[in-house]
């Protein structure tokens, strides 16, 4: 083929794949995608200079070296990160041994595959946008590489993607989804995870609270409960080592009775952290795909950290009745030595109060009245007696300090107690009609077991210190956490609020309908559209036929569309029509001379004009050089007048 003409097409391929791997700069060790981008750039330089390519003897050792680098950095060559790293390395080396069109086609195909890799890491609208840009670049490069349309290939690429978009949407909606994976891949343990951890120490939650990212979203069936009632439980911490509360799974099983309360049904969408998702206090039963662990905590069967959607039901405000054996009670009273002042205070309240509930009341009163402050930046607590230091000297803390201190006091007084972590509150989004819970809603509180009634009672000491934390959310109680506009550093002005809510709603819809479009949602849609009661072969076929017909409509439009006729052709048609008015039939094969001959019997003035027009037509039609558009338009105007005249004449005669 014409080799020199081919060069820009190869540049297009290089440009397209370079665009495709840009997002991987964020997800892989930075040096690797950067190295591959550099290699692509180098290849482009070689292309421009028509230089010789390095041989296999140079490339293979380099590839092995780079793969070894990946191994040292990631400790794996499979899985999400390892596989992606290996693939882009292969791409980087493949371009150095691409010479023929066929090689470049392989590079392009690899590019199409690579554009799926960033989606494994992130499925936000931005990823989708980048996917579209990648596809556009790849399609454009494909057109260039096919080589037939050197000009206008960008337009053709856009047109092709737009025409195939409806078909893609139909397939996306209709093609069956699997409820679970085909095979499970090893998890990347070093991937950083956010969210509440298995343990709690001073500072662990206040770190989380400063993040504004969304934790999960909830849609209630029916009336939503009051915000102050929304305690989302994730984890129970039942062991204290003097500084840190952690979960040692002290109880393997339990028999629980939930009494009273108001039934609330809701659908929750969120990314599980270590297979855990929060549930509203207290869950009635385990939602599908998970089990309830002791303490009524949800653990999902799958250990994937992709977003899931669960339908759950909780009895709000119910009594959590459980009979604890003596040894169980002892387990919930265990304390390490230390903090003598706190123990003394607990014993003092124990003496003053009649029962456990009285003790709780006494303790909450203490927190309320003794100048405790709710702050994100408490002084550091050092030494073995951290609880003493908090209760008697610093008196400043965040929810984890209060929960920890309260649980300590309760245990010191002989009351079984445990710390619960989770989220408290939610923010309603009126645009998307859902409730959003953010990382900043992370919270910790205490549950104490009352011997008299044999039930676990939730006690939120933070609420005693800062009541508005529970009623209005954390941002109202700590001014520095009020939502601010980035860069401007001030509060979000009122007029921006709807915009922010719309953005949240769009994110919610994206999560619900695009990222979270799974087998269950598909089944719902099939039922809604009346395509069938199950996603089986017949229903899919029906949906494909129905959707395919819809998706083909734009294609039909494209097929039937007549491109704008050249002005010369328009003019010729006008002349033919005009001569028809004069009673002269012109065949499509007739040239200007034939037309003139056939019009020989016309009156002289008409003939002269016709002859002049035809002469100009012939001059323009058979001249190869590009014509100035103005000249053609002027001629077309004359032809129009001529045709008008002919029509008029026919009407008169």
């Amino acid at each position, binding site marked *: 083929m014409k080799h020199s003409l081919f060069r820009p097409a190869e540049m297009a391929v290089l440009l397209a794949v370079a665009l495709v791997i840009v997002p991987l700069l964020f997800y892989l060790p930075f040096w690797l995608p950067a190295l591959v981008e550099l290699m692509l750039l180098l290849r482009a330089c070689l292309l421009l200079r028509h230089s010789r390519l390095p041989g296999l003897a140079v490339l293979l050792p380099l590839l092995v070296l780079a793969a070894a680098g990946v191994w040292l950095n990631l400790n794996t060559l499979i899985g999400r990160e390892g596989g992606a790293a290996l693939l882009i390395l292969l791409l980087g080396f493949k371009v150095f041994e691409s010479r023929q069109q066929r090689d470049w086609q392989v590079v*392009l195909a690899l590019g199409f595959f690579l554009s*799926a890799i960033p989606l*494994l890491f992130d499925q936000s609208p931005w990823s989708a946008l980048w996917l579209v840009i990648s596809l556009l670049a790849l399609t454009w490069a494909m057109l260039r590489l096919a080589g*037939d349309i050197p000009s206008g290939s960008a337009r053709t690429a856009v047109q092709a993607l737009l025409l195939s978009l409806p078909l893609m949407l139909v397939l996306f909606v209709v093609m069956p989804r*699997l409820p679970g*994976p085909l095979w499970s891949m090893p998890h990347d343990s070093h991937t950083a995870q956010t969210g509440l951890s298995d343990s709690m120490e001073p500072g662990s939650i206040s770190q989380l609270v400063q993040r504004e990212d969304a934790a999960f979203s909830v849609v209630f069936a029916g009336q939503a409960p009051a915000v102050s009632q929304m305690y989302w439980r994730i984890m129970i911490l039942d062991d204290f080592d003097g500084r840190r509360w952690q979960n040692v799974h002290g109880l393997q099983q339990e028999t629980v009775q939930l009494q009273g309360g108001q039934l609330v049904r809701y659908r929750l969408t969120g990314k599980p952290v270590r297979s855990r998702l929060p549930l509203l206090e207290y869950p009635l039963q385990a939602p599908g795909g998970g089990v309830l662990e002791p303490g009524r905590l949800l653990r999902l069967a799958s250990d994937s950290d992709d977003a899931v959607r669960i339908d759950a039901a909780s009895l709000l405000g119910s009594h959590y009745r459980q009979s604890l054996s003596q040894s169980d009670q002892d387990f919930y009273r265990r304390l390490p030595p230390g903090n003598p002042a706190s123990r003394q205070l607990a014993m003092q309240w124990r003496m003053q109060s009649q029962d456990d509930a009285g003790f709780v009341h006494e303790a909450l009163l203490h927190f309320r009245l003794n100048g405790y402050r709710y702050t994100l930046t408490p002084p550091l607590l050092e030494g073995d007696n951290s609880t003493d230091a908090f209760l008697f000297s610093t008196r400043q803390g965040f929810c984890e300090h209060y929960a920890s201190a309260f649980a300590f006091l309760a245990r010191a007084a002989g009351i079984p107690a445990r710390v619960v972590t989770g989220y408290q509150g939610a923010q309603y989004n009126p645009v998307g009609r859902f409730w959003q819970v953010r990382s900043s809603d992370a919270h910790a509180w205490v549950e104490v077991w009352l011997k008299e009634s044999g039930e676990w009672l939730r006690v939120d000491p933070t609420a005693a210190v800062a009541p508005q934390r529970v009623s209005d959310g954390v941002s109202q109680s700590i001014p520095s956490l009020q939502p601010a506009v980035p860069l401007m550093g001030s509060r979000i002005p009122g007029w921006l609020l709807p915009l922010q809510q719309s953005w949240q709603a769009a994110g919610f819809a994206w999560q619900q309908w*695009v990222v979270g479009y799974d087998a269950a949602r598909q089944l719902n849609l099939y039922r809604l559209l009346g395509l069938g009661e199950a996603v089986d072969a017949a229903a899919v076929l029906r949906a494909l036929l129905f959707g395919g017909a819809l998706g083909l409509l734009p294609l039909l439009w494209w097929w039937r569309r007549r*491109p704008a006729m050249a002005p010369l052709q328009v003019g010729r048609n006008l002349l033919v029509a005009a001569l028809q008015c004069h009673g002269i039939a012109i065949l499509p094969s007739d040239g200007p001379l034939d037309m003139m001959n056939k019009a020989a019997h016309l009156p002289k003035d008409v003939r002269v004009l016709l002859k002049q027009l035809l002469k100009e037509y012939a001059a323009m039609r058979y001249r190869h050089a590009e014509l100035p558009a103005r000249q053609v338009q002027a001629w077309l105007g004359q032809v129009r007048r001529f045709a008008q005249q002919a029509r008029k004449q026919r009407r008169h005669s």
Partner: protein
Amino acid sequence: MLPFRKRLRSWWWRRLPREAVCRLSQRRIYLLPTRFGLLLLAVAAAVWVGALNYAVSLAYGLAFWIISLLLLAVLMAYRQLAGLQLQVEAGENTFLGQVANCRLSLINQAGVERQIHLWAEEGECAVHCQLPAGGQQSVSIPLLLNRRGPHAYPVLQIWSTAPFGLIRAFSWWRPDATVLAYPHPLPDRIRHADGLQTGKGRSRGEGEEDFSHLAEYQAGDTPRQIAWSMLARRDVLASKRFVSQPRGHAVHELAWQDYPAALDVETRLSRLCWRLLQCEKAGQRYRVRLPDTVIEPQAGQRERALAALANCSLPS
């Protein structure tokens, strides 16, 4: 495998009707993915499996978009050929052993540009042409003439992979036209002089081609005689007459019987052909006598005589 494929193909070609004009329609356009198309299909399948396994919704979107693009490529490739009109034009007859041009024209009546490739197995010939919207283009397919007589135009594959190179649309056409292979001229000096029937005309010279006057066109006047400038200017068909139009003068007899019966047919025809060409070159009048026909001096005699030589077959 290969011989089988070849046999299958030749069987298929024999089944094709001969057509002087053919308009490509869905009944004769075939569509197959190219190697690149298959590769991309495999990529779409791989992305789909990945999407299934990792439950990545957007990857489903990517897989389905690639598949939709492939479907669209099928339509676009089909559109490259659909409605294309091909017709035969008179081929250029030539001598045995030479390459003849089989002339065709491609007519694109649609309002879109087309990228068309033509391919003929005979001669491994490939032609690419870019047809603008509403355009027409003449193409010649070279054909090696390896025996005397009529040669059918080769069966043509018309194909296009535009615009993506993913799908190949193709169609077969067996043009209903032939080119003639004239005998290969063999020098034959001695005989050439003998055949001259002396007339009483003046000896020939440069002056004989001198222009005399214009006369009305008569059937049989050669294209060389037509006054083209007149036609262009006045739109009148006129013929030029020369001072000494070779009429009624010496006529060379080029006869089959000039050669001994022992000489084989092809050699005889080759020598006759050479003498004929000599006469044409010198502008001499001649008569060709073949066992079955006689070609008298006339307009277009060269072509007729050569055709007679080419088609000459003797009951032996």
